């Protein structure tokens, strides 16, 4: 079987561990991938020390974008915000364990862009956040 749809991706897509919303939350942000309409919202709870204590994502999109969001959320719980600010494209691809062409890369990176835009308190999830 090919790498792109290796079992872990399909599994996280079909049975995500962190899909949902957090209410109350300290940080919430959502954005779309204009190319395909994929949508991701991310909610975070953060303690006084700036560490993420809980996180969820919600939205719709392809297996790559949704599995990537689930894996990303799983990885950031327990991390300080300062560390999240440093995450980039390569960290996410390592998490996914696959190689992606330019179009599908955007699907994979949407959750990281949304996460970082939320952490930085920006109005829009731009590409420059993950380069």
């Amino acid at each position, binding site marked *: 079987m*090919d790498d*792109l*749809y290796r079992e872990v991706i*399909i599994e996280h897509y*079909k049975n995500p561990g962190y899909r949902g919303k957090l209410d109350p939350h300290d940080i919430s942000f959502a954005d779309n991938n204009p*190319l*395909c*309409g*994929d*949508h991701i919202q991310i909610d975070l709870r953060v303690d006084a020390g700036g560490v993420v204590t809980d996180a969820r994502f919600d939205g*719709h*999109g*392809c*297996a*790559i974008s*949704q599995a990537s969001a689930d894996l990303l959320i799983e990885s950031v719980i327990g991390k300080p915000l300062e560390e999240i600010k440093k995450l980039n494209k390569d960290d996410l691809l390592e998490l996914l364990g696959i190689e992606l062409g330019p179009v*599908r890369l955007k*699907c994979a990176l949407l959750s990281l862009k949304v996460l970082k835009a939320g952490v930085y308190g920006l109005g829009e999830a731009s590409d420059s956040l993950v380069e």
Partner: protein
Amino acid sequence: MPMSLNIKEIRKDFPILERETQSGVRLTYLDSTATSQKPLQVIEAMNDYYRRSNANIHRGVHTLAEEATAMYEGAREKIAKFINASSPREIIYTRNTTESINLVAYSWARANLKQGDLVILTEMEHHSNLVPWHMLQAERGIELDFIPVTDDGLLDLEVYKALLKRTPKLVSFTHMSNVLGTINPAGEIIRLGHEVGAIMLVDGAQSVPHLKVDVQALDADFYAFSAHKMCGPTGIGALHGKSALLEAMPPFMGGGDMIKEVKLRSFRPNTLPHKFEAGTPAIAEAVGFGVAVDYLTKIGMDDIAAHEHEITSYALERLEEIPGVKLFGPSADKKGGVAAFTLEGVHPHDVAQILDRDGIAVRAGHHCAQPLHEKFSIPATSRASFYLYSTKEEVDLLVNGLYKVKEMFG
């Protein structure tokens, strides 16, 4: 009586259809609605133009300039004839359908529409026939209203008739939907609009490649289309306009070729069609456009339409058999060669990606028709589309591929 096409011979004209997308996997190209493939005749004509005749047009008197001008203008004559325009002067070269619509929005509409004027569009428009009007709305305060799409993918003409009572200044609609495939009753829509004095603009990006279009019989005021969807090159399209309207319109872009005379502080615009063609145009592309029209004419638009109908009927029938597949748009008798669908539990991007591994090229997304997808409460669809070179075997490959996708996400 339409003849069935000799697909084997036709496919020989499209060398790209023989290529492999990866070792041992031959291309199955089902994305002609996005752009068609190009026959050797077009590729070679453009190549020959650059090898033998390349020169700038209209101003030069040397042999090559004369030759290039004749080829550029000759192509315009062929295109005019292809859609039965009353004169080649009514064919304005543009970059594509989008630019043709923008030409009307910038030139005609900005000269003729004021705050509060109504423009009627439809819910099935491509973004290219929405955004220019959104921009004009922001600038001018025009009003927009929309002919709704019924659940089976047709325009609701009863609502259209009611909208016409508000005397729109312009009605702009697609002749054939790029997602649903719906072939709209353009003649009737135009006749009804004309009864209340509206100017009628038709987005013909999908219709001109696939149907016999007669702009005089339709009585369209403006008709926009692109070469690249009809076996021609990218980078060139056309706007057909009735000459009385085009004569009265201000130029769209300023520069060389569109002028009769220039002084330091003023200019006089050129006559039609040059008034709207500023700067050095896409000459090789115009040549290719003309040859594409020759190619389609030689095969015959009625036969092409009949072939596509046969393939589309077969595709809809086969796709419908697959559990979890939901098709969008009307039945085969009311649509062109497009099958947009969703597969339950699998995002269209994943469908397209997995099909690609078998060399099958389909499109996934909102196909530049986001409002239409919102109407059907879906973020995206997968879309297979067919043209004169498509075969039933390719439909079978698509269906087999979809079963594989289902298995993977099972």
